[in-house]
């Protein structure tokens, strides 16, 4: 195993070096780094050109100049690590450090969401193969896959971001729109749940009525300008989450698991008011710590309830705790919403369409959290939509393949419930091939992020890249590439390791 790891690491390093050489030379030959000086009218033009040439060793041909850059990298071993300076004289390491945070945020958020939603769609379509839902989801994933990312980003910016901000200024939803949305929602749910005609009609009617009611409520109370859930809604949603999680994780027959989840939800609701009291003094890390604590409490409650399968109860408790905690957190963010929207720098237009944070905005953890959210929302949605399609197709194909295996037949023959067969036997095995896909997708997401950042005016890695290419700034380009390359290599390596760890058929003896 260790030899395998070392060999893989060395091979990755060589691959990275070759790739960096390619990028360096190609970038250096892509244009003239003295272009802006040549066209300038400054009197000391000749001097400036000579200065830049000397500073960046432009008189050395690029295939050799690469090694000057590489020596800066290698000097990391004696503590003098340097990526050089960009054309404006700023250290590239500082530039990268400033840019990397936001881009990683964007990529992580869209990756997690795309994987989660994509797998959900893929699994459900596979279980209901050749249904209307399956065909519609298939068509939609082909459509999403064919969307140009920048086009989606611009459309989202205009027709979601700016349109929503305009709506907030004059918060009226016409009744006709409510009826239309309710009917569409009813139709969607009907198609998703399916079944015989009678069930379809019941689903259609209840989904239409529920959606209509929610939207009427939103329209009447001007909910989007002062959103909140309140303890009653949290209690209801919490109970729903508890039942749903138990149904998926342990099956509703397992009463102890069900009691675990319900008690966990109850504890969450009981802690609602105490949480409000301490919430103003919280920071990001203490919120994460609280989240971990909540999961631990959920697991402990599950352990206490035990039941026929202690693991199942613990799992149900932990997952329920996580979701109830997220609900309480969401409610707390909503309470700060009107302060955020009303503040001078936001001025009633909360959905950010430019940049990754509102300049000059300061406030508590909650205010800043909302600010990050409003700026991340649209770029993440745009980026996610496109990789979503791939995940849903792959997980569908993967589950279909697994469901045809002999061990699934055996599981059924043993008399296991459909839930156990799907969740415990099929689903886990279907996820194995997806690890490789995730690794490959990260590279695509980095490319997508360049575009999305461009549309939304973020100054992240994407801007670094575009600027570097426009000014033929090789050092800055290499700063960009080093980060993306290392990320891509790391994910590929992780995928290989995860694959061999998950699938015992794959042996990694070198």
């Amino acid at each position, binding site marked *: 195993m260790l030899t395998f790891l070392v060999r893989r690491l060395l091979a990755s390093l060589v691959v990275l070096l070759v790739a960096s050489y390619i990028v360096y030379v190609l970038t250096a030959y892509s244009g003239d780094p003295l272009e802006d000086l040549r066209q300038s009218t400054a009197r000391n033009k000749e001097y400036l050109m000579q200065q830049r040439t000397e500073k960046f060793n432009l008189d050395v041909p690029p295939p050799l100049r690469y090694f000057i850059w590489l020596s800066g990298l290698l000097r990391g071993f004696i503590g003098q690590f340097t990526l050089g300076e960009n054309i404006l004289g700023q250290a590239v390491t500082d530039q990268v450090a400033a840019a990397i945070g936001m881009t990683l945020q964007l990529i992580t958020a869209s990756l997690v969401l795309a994987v989660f939603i994509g797998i959900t769609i893929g699994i459900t379509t596979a279980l209901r193969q050749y249904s209307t839902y399956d065909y519609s989801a298939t068509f939609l994933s082909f459509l999403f896959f064919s969307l140009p990312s920048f086009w989606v980003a611009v459309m989202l910016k205009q027709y979601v971001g700016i349109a929503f901000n305009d709506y907030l200024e004059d918060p009226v939803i016409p009744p006709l729109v409510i009826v239309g949305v309710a009917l569409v929602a009813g139709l969607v749910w009907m198609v998703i749940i399916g079944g015989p005609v009678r069930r379809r009609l019941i689903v259609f009617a209840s989904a239409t009525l529920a959606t209509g009611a929610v939207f009427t409520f939103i329209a009447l109370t001007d909910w989007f300008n002062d959103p909140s859930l309140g303890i009653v809604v949290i209690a209801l949603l919490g109970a729903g989450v508890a039942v749903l999680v138990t149904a998926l994780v342990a099956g509703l027959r397992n009463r102890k698991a069900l009691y675990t989840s319900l008690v966990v939800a109850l504890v969450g609701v009981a802690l609602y008011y105490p949480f409000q009291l301490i919430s103003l003094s919280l920071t990001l890390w203490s919120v994460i710590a609280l989240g971990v604590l909540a999961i631990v409490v959920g697991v402990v409650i599950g352990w206490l309830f035990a039941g026929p399968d202690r693991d199942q109860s613990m799992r149900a408790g932990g997952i329920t705790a996580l979701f109830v905690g997220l609900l309480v957190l969401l409610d707390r963010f909503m309470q700060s919403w009107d302060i955020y929207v009303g503040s001078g720098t936001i001025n009633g237009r909360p959905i950010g369409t430019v940049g990754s944070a509102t300049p000059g905005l300061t406030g508590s953890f909650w205010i800043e959290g909302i600010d990050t959210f409003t700026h991340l929302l649209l770029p993440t949605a745009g980026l996610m939509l496109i990789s979503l399609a791939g995940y849903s197709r792959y997980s569908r194909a993967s589950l279909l393949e697994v469901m045809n295996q002999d061990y699934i037949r055996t599981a059924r023959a043993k008399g296991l419930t459909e839930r156990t067969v799907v969740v415990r036997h099929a689903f886990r095995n279907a996820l194995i091939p997806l690890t490789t896909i995730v690794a490959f997708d990260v590279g695509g997401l980095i490319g997508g992020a360049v575009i999305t950042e461009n549309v939304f005016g973020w100054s992240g890695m994407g801007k670094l*890249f575009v600027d570097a290419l426009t000014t033929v700034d090789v050092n800055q380009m290499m700063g960009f590439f080093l980060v993306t390359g290392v990320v891509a290599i790391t994910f590929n390596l992780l995928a290989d390791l995860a694959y061999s760890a998950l699938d015992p058929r794959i042996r990694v003896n070198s």
Partner: protein
Amino acid sequence: MIPPSDPERQNIEETTHFPETSEDDVEQVENAIELKEVEGISQTRLVLRRFVRHKAAMISLFVFLGVVGLAFSSIGIDAMGIKTPGWWQFNSVAIYDLLDGGVPSATHPFGQDEVGHDIFAQVMRGTQQSLMIVFVAGIVATLLGVLVGSIAGFFRGRIDQLLMRFTDAIIIIPVLVITAVLGSTFNRSGSFVLAIVLGLVLWTGMSRLVRGDVLSLREREYVDAARVAGASNSRIIFRHILPNAIGVIIVNATLVMSATILTEAAVSFLGFGVQFPDVSLGSLIHNFQTAFNTRPWLFWWPGLFIIIIALTINFIGDGLRDAFDPRQKRGLNRVARKQRTVVRPAEEVGA
């Protein structure tokens, strides 16, 4: 980028939803039908027949041909010295009087930009360019990928190691990044050169797949037989191995093409692709980006055409994938299902 894949071929529902019925019956009926269907048909005819049966792919094929026809007939061709007139009264470079501020009208169905260009003509010109780039890049990438993949897979050993590590090195550079870098070097030489450059970037996925296929095909008996008969390496590769990998190659070529149009558009959108005065669908969106608030229609049409082209190519690829897969029975399913309902009319297809 992840290609959408649709490799479900097995009849899941027979095992999933009818655990109580005898599966042997169903299988026997299906096998009988399959045998009858493929009796005395060549491989090509079989693939063609399966493809024609794939509804989404056939519709897509017609829509795609329609777009090609529209783009090349409307404003005519003006490339490599060949000039043919089109039936559209305006062209993409001339400036016309602004009608009603450029809002789409009967005269200018796609509207006009702020100067007075006819957007329909521009979008058609952009579509021509984008289609040309798709085909040229697709062919270049396919040829290169097949060459690298088959050499690596056939000779194995050190050559394989070397070629695959090189492929890895290209793969870890995000496609958009390397295309933009190359684009900014070569875009002044015109869009044909850009297309070739795109092809030189997008071959990696093809080479990996072809290598995998060749690795297994080279172990077949007929390859041994050919070698015993004295065939040279190149003859074995080109006459015996590659024709058997044609399914993988063709299907993946469509994927490369749909990736090409999106990459070209993205690179042109960033400003490193096709340059003014020449236009592609991506560069049109790039040029109109600032005018979005006043003239949103400038934005809709090029985007719409990119989506149509990419979507139809993806569906055609999906149809080809199903057609080339010997395990696929989707077309057969309906027939088999009919047969089954005759046998067991009371059976309800439940979900």
